[in-house]
């Protein structure tokens, strides 16, 4: 089991969701985050006050998957989130110790497999 974390542009979030859906990756969480990953600095002006925006809006996907689904998930994230310009985001994969589905008490592999599989 792995936890796949994908941090992507907010305007690509819908494409990522679509790609994940097509790859049959169903259990996901998504949150809005602010991040900085080396993109060119953006300057904004508020009534004469110029500020350099250090952080950009990003969307963070968290997806717990069984091992055989890790590559599929990564591919879907890349496919949905890529524009080719700096700021597309990153994917992190980390080992997952345990997973429990609260409703049924199923553990690990059973818990990260979508219902009905």
């Amino acid at each position, binding site marked *: 089991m792995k936890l796949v974390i994908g941090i992507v*542009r907010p*305007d*690509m979030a*819908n494409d990522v969701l679509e790609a994940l859906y097509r790859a049959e990756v169903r259990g996901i969480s998504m949150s809005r985050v*602010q991040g*900085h990953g080396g*993109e*060119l*600095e*953006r*300057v*904004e*002006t*508020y009534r004469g*006050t*110029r*500020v*350099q*925006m*250090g*952080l*950009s809006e990003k969307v963070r996907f968290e997806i717990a998957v069984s091992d055989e689904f890790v590559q599929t998930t990564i591919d879907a994230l890349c496919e949905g989130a890529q*524009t080719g*310009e*700096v*700021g597309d985001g990153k994917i992190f994969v980390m080992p997952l110790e345990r997973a429990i589905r609260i409703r049924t008490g199923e553990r690990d592999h059973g818990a990260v497999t979508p219902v009905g599989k």
Partner: protein
Amino acid sequence: MSLPLAAAPAAIDTGDTAWMLIATALVLVMTIGLGLFYAGLVRAKNTLNTFMMCVAALAVATITWALVGYSLAFDGDGKILGGLGHAFMSDVGFAPRDGTTIPQLVFFAFQGTFCIITTALVSGAVVERMRFGPFLIFSALWSVLVYAVLAHWAFGGGWLAQQGTLDFAGGVPVEMGSGFSALAAALVVGARKDYGRQALLPHNAIYVLLGAGLLWFGWFGFNGGSGFNTGQNSVLAFANTLLTPACTLLTWFILDFLRNRQITAIGAATAIIVGCVGITPAGGFVSPIWAMVLGVLVTFPCYAVVALRPRTRVDETLDVLAAHGVAGLFGIVFIGLFAQKDWNGIADGLFYGDGGQFWSQVVAAAAAPVYAFGMTYALLRGLGALMPLRGSDRDEAVGMDIVHHGEEAYVTGEGAILITAEAGDVEDLPVAQPV
């Protein structure tokens, strides 16, 4: 018609003038209300740009109105266009405007606020993708080539007024003018890149309701002021501005409930606009009871267009055609059916014995949409040949606020570093360049 500036304003009525000063301010606040209404309907990343298109109309349309628009609309009674006698505001002074009891300056300002909001209305068709610079140029040209011309036809003694069309507060220039221009603008500028592919939802329903409320509030000046006095037609239009939208609201509730078993807030906000628009042309001409019937009936065609338009490829984004074009057309025709001389002192409609009036209304309902659509289409096609009307797909993805204004509506400020002049590196930084 040139009025001597220094002439004693003997015919000026202080009560009428006082009301018209207030009415002018009421109509002006409608443009801000519209900005709020539109801003709530778009995605968060386009909030400021959408609002700014309305603010742009405040700047641009006021100036074009003062320079030539007012003159083309209200100088003389040429069939198609007014003269240039009032260009650059010449002879627009304290003497009463012909046919009214208010100074021409007040009349000018009141009519100017109409030009502003109508220009702002058209932006609803092109939000979330049209570049801000070209929009400024478009609104300057549109306010003269479309609004001033239609205003002359209906209000300024042009051919529609001459052949007897009744239009109390702007069914022709404001509502049909903006609605059918919006359709043309949407066709020329094209759909947003995500239109029809993703759900593009309103980001703040409270703004939408508050904006609709401000619009309704301002509409009392819009309709109530369109008699230019405090006489019976003005009072009738004022009261009808309360009655019609209330009936439209309830009818919209019922249609919403029948369709989805739920009554929606954004639907309610839309219903307020539709009701106000419906009574705009008819306000001073139909009885209060017929105004209520109008409120019920106007809901059906507008609701249908709102429901069906998103199924087409036409991304007329904020439904200006449904809420203004269709409702305005309905109101214009309604006058021809149910106007009542007992109430308006001017003319009867078909149901009260004057079929000719109905015909006059139908002519206006056919001519105004054709002109507004055709002229706007040509205008934007021409402008589009000179400069790109919309930005790249990437710009659209990042959002108009950052790309065109270098600001965000919901900025947090976390991680933002103040740039001081002493830092020395200010000039090297790209200004609002999206990554």
